């Protein structure tokens, strides 16, 4: 009896202590309310707030027949009003698809009837009601593709050419990889790790560059970290499930098709970002899609197929269907990315895509490394492994020069 009541009392006490955890939150709300209610009196103690910058964030300029469309966003906390629009330093009448006065992070599309000159540089300016002008220089005016059957198919073909086909071709190395001795297999696995490391760094640079152009209110580096961590942890969880499903003890390194699938997912997420970059650069006239560029991407990405094939070089035979699926997983996202980049403006999504690709590549590098450490004679420090890793980075660097 006595014991029971003590235990109950202890439980009650614990509940009370847990309730006390709310105290800081309640106090925070109270103090915040008091601060807000005080208005600007705190600021006036120290000085004066600077005026709002009143600059727009010009997200996209589209060229349609006889028409220019400008997508603008308000990146600042204060409201921002679109008052005047210029094209090449000439005031132009315009209509708005969206509000004239933009609240924080809200967007509007400015539509200007204008006979623009194809291939000529052009600048557009948006002036706020306070007279501050934001100018965007477009290096060359080219028609922006609309989302019709032709362009949907076109982006799909681009995605297929730079994504699926090279990966599939790389996978065809699988038969020749079979039967190589363990040290050489380790070398190829290390090569996979090397190229994935290269892709991770590449995607990280891209993500950081894109986030720098975002309004600071949208997160910046935090957004990149979020994408990296989320994808890394998600793939770690998936890898564990694969490994326990495959009969191995949880935590054992992945092998064979399971590891190849992980590599394919990592590469696929990277190709999603790559497709998005190609699609959006082409849509806004910043990228010429010459045959050299397409060929460059193809050569660059063939290596990715090799990376997927390497883990399957030992063990059971893999069906053709499975290989085709792996090629789709690794290459298909390039099509999706090209569509998103070509037709939709979502700069936040673009940052997230590249960040996710970083986390995915890092996770797969970890998986591959564990595999190599366990399976390769001489472990991670053997000459074949070191050489293979270096070769992976060098091959990606050299083929990357083709698309630079």
């Amino acid at each position, binding site marked *: 009896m006595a014991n029971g009541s003590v235990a109950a009392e202890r439980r009650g006490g614990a509940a009370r202590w847990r309730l006390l955890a709310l105290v800081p939150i309640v106090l925070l709300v109270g103090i915040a309310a008091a601060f807000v209610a005080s208005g600007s009196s705190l600021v006036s103690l120290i000085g004066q707030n*600077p*005026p709002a*910058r*009143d*600059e727009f964030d010009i997200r996209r300029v589209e060229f349609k027949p*006889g028409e220019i469309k400008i997508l603008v966003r308000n990146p600042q906390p204060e409201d921002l*009003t*679109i*008052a*005047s629009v*210029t094209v090449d*330093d*000439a*005031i*132009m*009448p315009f209509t708005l698809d969206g509000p004239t006065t933009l609240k924080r992070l809200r967007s509007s599309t400015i539509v*200007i*009837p*204008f*006979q623009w000159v194809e291939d000529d540089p052009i600048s557009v*300016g948006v*002036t*706020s*009601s*306070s*007279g*501050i*002008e*934001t*100018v965007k220089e477009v290096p060359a005016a080219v028609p922006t593709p609309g989302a019709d059957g032709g362009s949907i198919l076109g982006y799909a073909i681009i995605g297929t050419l730079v994504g699926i086909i090279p990966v599939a071709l790389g996978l065809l190395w699988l038969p020749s990889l079979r039967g190589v001795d363990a040290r050489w297999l380790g070398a190829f696995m290390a090569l996979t790790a090397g190229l994935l490391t290269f892709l991770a760094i590449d995607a990280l640079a891209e993500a950081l560059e894109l986030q720098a152009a975002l309004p600071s209110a949208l997160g910046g580096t935090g957004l990149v970290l979020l994408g990296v961590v989320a994808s890394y942890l998600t793939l770690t969880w998936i890898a564990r499930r694969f490994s326990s499903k495959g009969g191995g003890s949880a935590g054992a390194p992945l092998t064979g098709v399971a590891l190849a699938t992980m590599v394919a997912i990592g590469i696929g997420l990277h190709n999603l970002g790559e497709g998005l970059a190609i699609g959006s650069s082409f849509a806004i006239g910043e990228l010429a899609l010459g045959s050299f560029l397409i060929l460059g991407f193809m050569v660059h990405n063939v290596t990715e197929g090799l990376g997927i094939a390497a883990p399957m070089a030992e063990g059971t035979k893999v069906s053709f269907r499975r290989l085709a699926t792996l090629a789709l997983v690794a290459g298909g996202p390039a099509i999706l990315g090209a569509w998103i980049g070509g037709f939709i403006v979502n700069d936040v999504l673009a940052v997230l895509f590249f960040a996710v690709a970083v986390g995915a590549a890092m996770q797969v590098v970890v998986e591959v490394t564990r595999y190599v450490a366990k399976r390769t004679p001489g472990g991670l420090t053997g000459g074949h492994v070191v050489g293979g890793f270096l070769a992976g980075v060098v091959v990606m660097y050299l083929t990357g020069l083709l698309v630079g």
Partner: protein
Amino acid sequence: MKKSGLTRRQMLLAAAASAPIVAGLAAAPSLVADTDPDPPMPAGHDHAGGHAAMIGHEVPAPGGPRDLDKLLTPPPALPHKPGRVREYQLVAVDRKIEVAKGVTFPAWTYNGTVPGPVIRATVDDLLRVHFVNNGSHPHTIHFHGIHPANMDGVFEIVRPGESFTYEFPAKPWGMQLYHCHATPLKKHIHKGLYGAFIIDPPEPRPPAQELVMVMNGFDTDGDGGNNFYTVNGKAFYYAKYPIRVRRSQTVRIYLANLTEFDLLNSFHLHGEFFRYYRTGSTDHFEYTDTVVQAQGERGIIEIDFTHTGLFMFHAHQSEFAELGWMGFFEVVD
């Protein structure tokens, strides 16, 4: 171009309507500028392409139909009467003005407008200009013309809250101008402290529809370059509300250039030639359709229209024209 407006914004002080506006200005009967409250729209125009001339309702211009009448129409000329006293009151006041459709500019003004009011006297009148500084910075008025050194608006700095009376005989006859001469000069002029100053000759000029046009620019984002160009302070105003004139009557324009930052400004008339009297202080004229003025330069234009219809006038710097310095005469019988 993409710069923050910090500099100019820090200067901002909304002193606004704290000052009594215009005392000595004789009420000007509207001789001309029969501005149509319903702007015309010529038939067959096509705005859809964006390249046809902008005219009428579609023009992005600020203000209502008669807003600029006082600046466009000078007070009437008075007969020659040596020694007569002409009194004006100018009050410097900080005020936000709308210089282009939806775009406000924190201006420094004389009597609340940019340009300031038209000052007019006949040669040998005794001009007495009471100046009150209700602005936030020291200002002066510097008149162009002939006057004593202590009436020159250079040494007599008028601090905020103070006042000063300029007094001198008006001469020589011609189109003069006035502006603030406090330093930094560039800032005080581009913020809007200037206006037209007409001195009539002893022998009256022939009757005409008289107009005043002060060419200027506004640097709304503080980057040292003008964002908008206007005559009389509102971009595209006379494109939205064309100036109606009669073919039977001479049109006389008192034209001055007070554009800051740009070296030159110009006036070009479509479909007609005119007489241009440089500074307007002699009878010499040039027969042309385009005049170029440096900052502070001014002159008198006399047009006898041959045809009726809509005739464009604008700066022949295309950039200025497309940034607001463009308008129309509607010539009627």
